[in-house]
């Protein structure tokens, strides 16, 4: 449908991923009294965030992203985020990566669905961008890339009409259709039902440009109002709030897209986890070939056992069916990569080409080159 959807999908999902990783990395932080190790861990957290954001906002990468194109298949997009999550020394195993992706996608689905106006999806994107900018405020090189992305977003999206934004929204909702994974934060706040569906509120401020439902006005042939009727709207709507800023800076007003993990209570099992983490890192093997640093592993679950259990008990229908790609030059790896590219090449039946100039020379290829 809309060929302008991919940048928003990528940036918002990326933003959610960073919120989650940031929270998990902090939860695995060692308190100051553990002396030497403390600084090292804090630096690593910043380094992980920086590395991922640098990859996300790579110039060539973004150039490809902003070109008009259909959305990737779910499989291809998941692979892009797998690569992104591993663009640093951090390591996630299958179960944690699955959980990370579940959280990211359900969070963005929620944000898209709850946006008062279709255009507000841009404000949600700016909320993510604002947070990303804050993560890298001390690194000028990445910061300038982030700023450049703001400009591209503003240039591409601010001129769009309400109908075009609604098409983008519909494209996203169709992409997220039938995803009903339960997220504990959403269940707790009662914004998600136990069947995984989100609750649409019939209260709160009406969107910009909309009147509170309740009034019927009838006119004569010469435009004079001749009758008014009120009806009960059955909800508890309030007046519209001021409009958020669509510029590089400014208050966005909408809360969707801000970090919902910020006030999460610290993990009471932190100390145990730290010990576990220290043990793991001490005995860490290099897992990916060609990786100079010994990475450290991040667990999205409370304990290793939980993580393992989650992997075993994960229902088949939630499987992302990820294709593992080695960043090597062997034929088989190229064939798999090319096959994925083939999945989202526009013309059906187009012969798959592994040459750099083939159609669909795109994000995955970019990521491989980084």
């Amino acid at each position, binding site marked *: *449908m*809309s*060929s*302008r959807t991919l940048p928003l999908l990528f940036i918002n999902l990326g933003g959610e991923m960073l919120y989650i990783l940031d929270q998990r990395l902090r939860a695995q932080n060692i308190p100051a009294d553990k002396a030497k190790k403390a600084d090292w861990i804090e630096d690593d957290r910043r380094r992980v965030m920086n590395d991922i954001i640098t990859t996300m906002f790579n110039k060539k990468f973004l150039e490809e992203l902003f*070109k*008009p194109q*259909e*959305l990737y*298949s779910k*499989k*291809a997009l998941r692979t892009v985020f797998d690569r992104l999550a591993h663009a640093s020394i951090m390591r996630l195993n299958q179960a944690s990566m699955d959980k990370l992706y579940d959280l990211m996608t359900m969070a963005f689905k929620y944000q898209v*669905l709850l946006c*008062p106006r*279709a255009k507000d999806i841009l404000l949600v994107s700016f909320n993510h961008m604002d947070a990303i900018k804050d993560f890298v405020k001390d690194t000028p090189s990445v910061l300038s890339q982030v700023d450049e992305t703001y400009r591209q977003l503003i240039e591409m999206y601010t001129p769009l*009409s*309400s*109908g*075009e934004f*609604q*098409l983008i929204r*519909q*494209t996203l*909702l*169709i*992409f*997220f*259709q*039938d995803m009903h994974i339960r997220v504990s934060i959403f269940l707790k706040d*009662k914004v998600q*039902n136990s069947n995984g*569906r*989100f*609750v*649409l*509120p*019939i209260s709160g401020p*009406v*969107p910009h*440009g*909309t*009147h509170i*439902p309740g*009034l*019927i*006005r*009838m*006119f*004569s*042939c010469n*435009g004079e109002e*001749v009758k008014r*009727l009120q*009806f009960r709207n*059955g*909800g508890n*709507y309030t007046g519209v709030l001021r409009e958020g800023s669509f510029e590089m800076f400014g208050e966005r007003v909408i809360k969707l897209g801000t970090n919902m993990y910020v006030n999460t209570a610290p993990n009471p099992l932190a100390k145990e986890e730290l010990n576990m983490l220290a043990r793991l890192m001490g005995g860490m093997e290099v897992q990916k070939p060609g990786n100079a640093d010994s990475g450290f592993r991040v667990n999205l679950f409370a304990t290793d056992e939980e993580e393992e259990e989650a992997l075993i008990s994960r229902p088949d229908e939630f499987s992302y069916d990820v294709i593992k790609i080695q960043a090597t030059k062997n034929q088989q790896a190229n064939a798999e990569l090319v096959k994925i590219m083939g*999945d*989202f090449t*526009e013309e*059906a039946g187009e012969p798959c080409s592994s040459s750099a100039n083939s159609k669909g020379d795109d994000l995955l290829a970019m990521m491989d080159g980084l």
Partner: protein
Amino acid sequence: MYHKEKSIQMKSSASALYNNLSVLRIAPRSLTYFTVVHANMVNMVSASWDGLNYSHRQLQSKEANVATSSSLIMQAAWCVLPSRDILVLTSQKGIQMYESDGSIMVYWHALDTPETQTAQAVFARGIAAVREKYICVGISSGSMLVFDVPIKGSNITLSEVLEEHKESITDLASECSGSLECIADMVSADDSGNLCVWKSGEDFQLLNKIPGFDMSCSSVKLWKGTVVAGYGTGQIRLYEAVTGIVHAEVNAHARWIYSLDIAPFSGLLLSAAEDSLVRVWHLTMTPETNSVEVTSQTIPGRNLTTPRTHRQTLTASLPLSPSRSCTCITSV
């Protein structure tokens, strides 16, 4: 007034698209067909009136490429012509037409898709049967295709291309009152809220253009010479088709309206929106004063606002018949 009938479970969920439910009543066979679009597929169910038999069928988008999003269906709707009923599917690739039970495709019209992807999306959306032999379909460029449909067979031809709208067509509607006295045969709506009123014929004639207010009109109906339009702001407006005079304005919903439908004999209007509500209105025409009165209705004994924990977006439609049954489905 409406009363709730037995719920029907579709094979898969409904996609978030305007006017995503189409209904066809086949009285001689005591059957009703329902269609709902799901991504690149159409789910069709045929339900017997005694509520005992259901038969499901799925129609695929032509040239569907399973892994991509480039062959999504935008709308499916039945076109009721005097001699036959045609099921029309509009997608990003083109327009498919089937015999009413969806068993045989009788016509395929491919859209011009550019070599390289453009920023402007390409798709067909907006379907209406007009008078005895026309089926009109809207395009994302703003054009409208008029197809000439023979009494039977597959010799359907493109009769005319109407170029009046500059924005993507959102919905088309033909006069549904059954009255032959109405001058206007069809109304078309687009993404900027502009409405065009047409008279059908060898060459379609533009009778009137009602300007929008920069807000998409997502659903439109034409009843007894009155245009009923639902907008992205949640407002419903009623206009006299040939003159553009505003009859009424209703602050109906708190979110984007996705669907409107009218029961032509009773003047009951249904509106469904992203605020998860379906509202019922009653339209009364007073020809002497050339006015239309709109009142809000509630279905007796039934609160259409579902409990908070179950609310989801709705799209709705109802059969153009006196049975006055209301059909709602949940989506997303």
